[in-house]
């Protein structure tokens, strides 16, 4: 019968009406992100609260968009000192290559996804400021570094 397809279509829209919403009321309710979701890069810290970064610069060289920058100086004892670890979150495409490349697990792709901001200065973040870099041994959490 001509028109039966249209009636069937209306039945389907009726069926969908009773299926209930799949959306949530966003700012009040939030959906859980999967474990692997990649958002803004964040530094990691060891149990004592010291950053695990050893200032090896692998992440800086790895980033395809050059959004990471480490300003490193030498301490009096000859170790590395991180003056600033700058991360340009506004230009980051969250590919995760820096985190994959980090041999010390010192950075992670956090689940911070609300990255909109009113202040353009927030688009450049300083992840670490004026801290001593971890030694490779301490970063790996063992003696056989």
């Amino acid at each position: 019968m001509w028109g039966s397809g249209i009636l069937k279509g209306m039945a389907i829209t009726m069926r969908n009406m009773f299926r209930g919403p799949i959306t949530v009321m966003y700012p009040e309710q939030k959906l859980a992100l999967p474990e692997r979701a990649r958002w803004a890069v964040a530094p990691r810290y060891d149990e004592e609260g010291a950053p695990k970064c050893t200032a090896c610069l692998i992440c800086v060289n790895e980033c395809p968009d050059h959004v990471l920058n480490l300003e490193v100086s030498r301490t009096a004892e000859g170790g590395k000192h991180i003056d600033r670890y700058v991360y340009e979150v506004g230009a980051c495409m969250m590919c995760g290559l820096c985190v994959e490349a980090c041999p010390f697990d010192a950075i992670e792709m956090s689940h911070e996804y609300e990255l909109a901001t009113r202040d353009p200065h927030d688009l450049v973040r300083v992840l670490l400021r004026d801290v001593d870099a971890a030694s490779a041994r301490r970063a790996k959490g063992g003696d056989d570094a």
Partner: protein
Amino acid sequence: MTDEPRVTMPITAEGTTFPGPLPCGLRCIPRGVDELATEHLVLNMGPQHPSTHGVLHILVELDGEEVIAAEASLGYLHRGIEKLAESRRYHQVPTLLDRADYISGLHSETAWALTVEKLAGIEVPRKASWLRALLMELNRYASHLVWLGTFGMDAGAMAPFLYIMRDREMLLDIIEAITGSRMMFNYVRPGGVAADLPTGVDAKIRAWLDVADTYLDENDALLGGNEIFRLRMKGTGVIDRATALAFGMTGGCLRASGVDYDLRRDVPYCAYPELDFEVPLGVRGDNMDRYDVRVGEMRQCIRLIRQLIDGMPEGEPSGKRSRVLKVPAGESYAAVESPRGELGIHLVSDGGFTPYRMRLRSPAYFNLAVVDEALAGGLIADAIVTLGSLDIVLGEIDR
């Protein structure tokens, strides 16, 4: 005002003469109008028009409502991806290719991985091949869903689009759980894939498979089962077999014109030789055929995903991957069947850490080239539907 003599013939409409000024305010009729001469109108469709998919600019020459000729003007989304790839190391290039075909990034990533592996002679574990095929099929289904929804919108059907986006959301959740991102995956790398399936995603895919058939049948009934939709699609936007071949069309558009060519079966790669699937074909090459072929492909997708998840082998998801991969000098080409057609990558290496030249053979570019042949002779309202049936992605066309 010029001193040009005006035609002062009185207007005659069904025998009535109007000697006075015309209702529009003109005192005389402009020259030429008395001959009832009409001229063609050139209409700019896009690049900001909502009915064109993305920033596509089409110049349409109209005679009334009939399309006389059409020409696509490209380049509004050009980002120089091919050139940028020359300054990226081999494992960094997938981040660019995700943004070339942003609806189905895993296909271009896999094409890149296959090209590099071919030239560098890298063996890929069986598990990685299967994971790639699984992710590509999930991505193909998600991509066809976008096409199905927007195609319905082009024809004026709003409701299916919303249901289809709901279905796509389930798929994107699965893909996000596996790759870590919803659209910019960066998952397939030369040498394998970035990570194995996470725990729990298997059940998620099976839960989706349970409802996928029902939802697809419903969406198909809403569009393909609708008589008005079928009447509009039949016989419009016809691309015959010879034209399709002459323009180098591939994918669903080519198969709708009756050419039996699918890279998954004819030039097998990844896990496809071990899988069982059919290639839907069209006859006439009109919009209805392109619709039927793509919906048929979606049914095959569900079948393939079921096989892939059931037969997923054990093993390592990746062989040895290097951040400083050196590919020997030479050239290679590998292609995958993306939702839009043959997505091929031609790689020229000079033996360094970065490609010497990367060339993307984007299927939508070739499918769009036929726009003049497909649109001419039809009506302007059908032109929008025909354009939608080609399933173009501007990110890939402009690169």
